[in-house]
Each structure stands twice: as structure tokens, then as C-alpha cells.
């Protein structure tokens, strides 16, 4: 992952101490070669707008106002650029989600804060969501591997609910995978259908489904109601 090493994330918010700030999501500044970052962002925008199949170096150049050489200084072709852009976009979103979750104590609090940040990011930029979540399927096996790895990280976080549950009350191991997959499919279906609004409204249902296997129907219903408020 040598390419990622060039990207250092500096979180603007300092976890729990950031409560007095009025900005809803932590701001992130990425320290990276400006041209390279421009290209990565341009690629995500192009793929979000046109789809991976129709993405081209020329479209990225048009959108970024850069010369061809700038692209080929950093990337071999569309695929290698998209893969780097995927890492970049997922990394940035994940950092924001983690920063929001870090401010919370309990698993349920972290889940609510993390999901809220994620759904708000999709609401604010559905094109980015399409580039990361929908078009990844069209970009070949390397991209799909990254998708699986990201899903695994989501699954692992969900399953950390186990730490707060008695062993004999815990659901079977497959529970978290089913939850992550179910949430993913609802988000994916919305993005793929070009439905660009109402991501935030998914939060109550997501809370219900994720809390249910670990804490039971009553706790799940309570979380759902709380998220609706």
C-alpha cells in the first residue's frame, strides 16, 4: 500500500473534546500532492457521473483542467487511478465515520454516530456514493477485493457489540455479516436507482436491524424511535 503512505489524514476534530464546535461533521484535510489529489477527486467525480465503463483519462483531465502528463506521472491507466481513488474516497469517509464514533462511549452510541456521518455523507454527495459503492462492481476483481475488505471492517465493527452482551445471549457469528449486507443493499439500491435523497431517513431502520440480534426487540425498537426523533 505504498500509494496510501503518501496520504496522511489530519482530523480537524479532536474526538470527545470537539463538542463545542458547531460543525456537524469533523472536517478532514488531506495532506497529499495537490495534483494527485485533484486527479483522484476528479476520477471519483467522473465515475460517479458517467459510470466506470464510460470513465476515461480525457474526462478526468477535462474536469480537473490538468495536462495529460500530470495524469500519467501518477497513474498508468484508468483502472489504477480508480483503485487509488477508491482507497482515497473510502479512507476519507471511513476516517470521518471513525472520528464521529470515537466521541461516543457505548457500541450503540458509536453505531448511531458512525451511521449518521455515513448517511449524511451520502446525502451530501450521492455521486461519491455511486463511485465508491455502485461502480466498484464494474471495475474488476481488484476493486471487488477492496469492497470485500471494507465490508469486513464494517462487519467487524458491528460484531464488536458482542463485548457488551453475555456470551449465552450472543447471536450466531453470521449475524453481523447479514446486518452489514442488508444495510449495504439498501444503500446500494438507492444509489443505483439514482435516488439521491432520503439517506438520513434510513437511520432508524438501520439502528433497529443492527441492535436487534445483540440486544433484542425491545432495545431495537427503542433505538429506532430515538433515531426518528
Amino acid at each position, binding site marked *: 500500500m505504498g500509494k496510501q503512505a503518501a496520504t496522511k489524514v489530519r482530523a480537524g476534530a479532536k474526538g470527545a473534546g470537539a463538542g463545542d464546535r458547531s460543525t456537524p461533521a469533523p472536517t478532514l484535510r488531506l495532506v497529499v500532492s495537490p495534483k494527485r489529489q485533484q486527479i483522484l477527486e476528479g476520477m471519483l467525480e467522473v465515475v460517479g457521473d458517467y*459510470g466506470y*465503463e464510460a470513465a476515461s483519462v480525457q474526462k478526468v483531465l477535462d474536469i480537473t483542467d490538468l495536462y495529460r502528463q500530470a495524469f500519467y506521472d501518477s497513474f498508468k491507466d484508468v483502472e489504477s487511478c480508480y483503485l487509488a481513488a477508491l482507497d482515497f474516497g473510502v479512507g476519507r469517509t471511513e476516517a470521518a465515520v471513525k472520528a464521529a464514533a470515537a466521541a461516543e462511549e457505548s457500541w450503540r452510541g458509536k453505531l448511531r454516530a458512525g451511521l449518521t456521518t455515513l448517511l449524511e455523507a451520502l446525502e451530501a454527495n450521492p455521486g461519491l456514493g455511486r463511485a465508491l459503492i*455502485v461502480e466498484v*462492481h*464494474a471495475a474488476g476483481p481488484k476493486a*471487488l477485493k477492496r469492497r*470485500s475488505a471494507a465490508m469486513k471492517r464494517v462487519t467487524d465493527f458491528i460484531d464488536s457489540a458482542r463485548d457488551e452482551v453475555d456470551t449465552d445471549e450472543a*447471536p*450466531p457469528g*453470521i*449475524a453481523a*455479516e*447479514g*446486518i452489514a*449486507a*442488508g*444495510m*449495504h*443493499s*439498501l444503500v*446500494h*439500491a438507492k444509489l*443505483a*436507482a439514482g435516488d439521491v435523497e432520503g439517506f438520513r431517513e*434510513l437511520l*432508524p*431502520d438501520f439502528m*433497529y*436491524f443492527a441492535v*436487534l*440480534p*445483540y440486544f*433484542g*426487540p425491545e432495545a431495537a*425498537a427503542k433505538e*429506532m424511535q430515538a433515531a426518528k426523533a
Partner: protein
Amino acid sequence: MDSSSAPNPTKATSSDLPRAYLVRSERERLLEAMLRVSAAKGYETTSVDDVLAVAGVSREAFDQMFAGKEACFLEAYEAVFDVLVAHVTAAFEAAAGEPWPQRIVAGLSALVGLLSIEAGIARLAMVEVTAAGEAARARYRSALARFTPFLEEGRDYSGQSEELPADTARFAIGGATSMIFDEVRAGRGPELKRILPDLVFAVLMPYIGPEAAEDEMRRVARGT
């Protein structure tokens, strides 16, 4: 279509068959060939020429029937899902006297049974399709939605029809399809039956809760 069902068995030579029959037969051969070829080599690398060679149909005939490769693929795709849905429906209906969770087990069992026998088709129906463009993905979504009615019967069974989130069926289907997707993509389509207990849990859990879903999962794993 079996040619023995033609109305006049004394005139069974192909040149005497009604024109409409020939056309449909070529169409079916093309659809079948499109499935076989794209299941074997992937949608993207499949060409119309590949399909023509397997179907033994001329380019002119193809052009008369389909606007292009995508149109042919979409129609073939629809036909595959018709078979899948009919198969699952039959299993679900055959268990009509059973409680809802067992009917879901019957339907899921039929689904993974068929997909594991037809692993190439499974790959096409569940994995390739997500890479075959916007129209194909739209078909995929509406195809999956055809399983919704079976799941929604779980609302009444759960006794908390009102409280369950509106998205419950889509969530359950999404969870199950994603598990199938991962298996098939990893080349484990032929052994898909192994994840039947997991699928049972993922589909039932949102409706009947983790404990009852786990009971069903264990029953399926024990094969009882």
C-alpha cells in the same frame, strides 16, 4: 419446445413447421446460448458472434430479433429469473401447511439447490449482472423484489406487523443475496448449500428475532 407436439406428426420436417415456430425456436436458442456463453466467459467478453456460433443462428436473424447484445442478455436474464422465482414459489407453496419460517426454509433450500446445480448461471444471475450496465442492474433489482411477497407474510407471523421497519423485506433479501454473491464470486457456487443455515438466519432474524431465528438455523444445520 418438443417438436413432437407439432400439430401434424406426419409432416415433421423442419421446412414444414410454421414460421412462428421457427422464429421462436431461434429466439430460444439465442437466449440459451447467450446464457451459456456469458456464464462461461463473463458478460463483458461475450460477443454476439460467440452467441451466434453456439446457437447456430445467422446474424440477420439475430438482428431481426434483438437490438444488440444487451437486449438479448436482458431478455435471457429475465427468463432465468422466471425459472428461479417459479422454483422458489413452488417450494414455498408446497409447504403451505407449515408455519411461515419453515416455508421460508423450503424456499431458500430450493433456491440454493438450483443455484448450486447451475453454478455458471448463478454467477451470471448474481454477480455478472452487477457489472453489465445500468439496465441490467435495474432488472436485477426488480427481479429480487419478486421475492418480497414471500417475506412479507412474515409480518403477520411475527405478530408485530406494525412495529417492523418498512424496509424489512428488502433488508432481509439484501443480506441473503450478498452472502450468495460472496460465495458465488469466490467460486464456491457449487457448494452453496453449505451456507443455507446462514441464509436462514439472515432472512428470518429481522422478522422473528435472533433466538427463534437461531433455532431454525440449528434445525437446518442438523438437517431435520
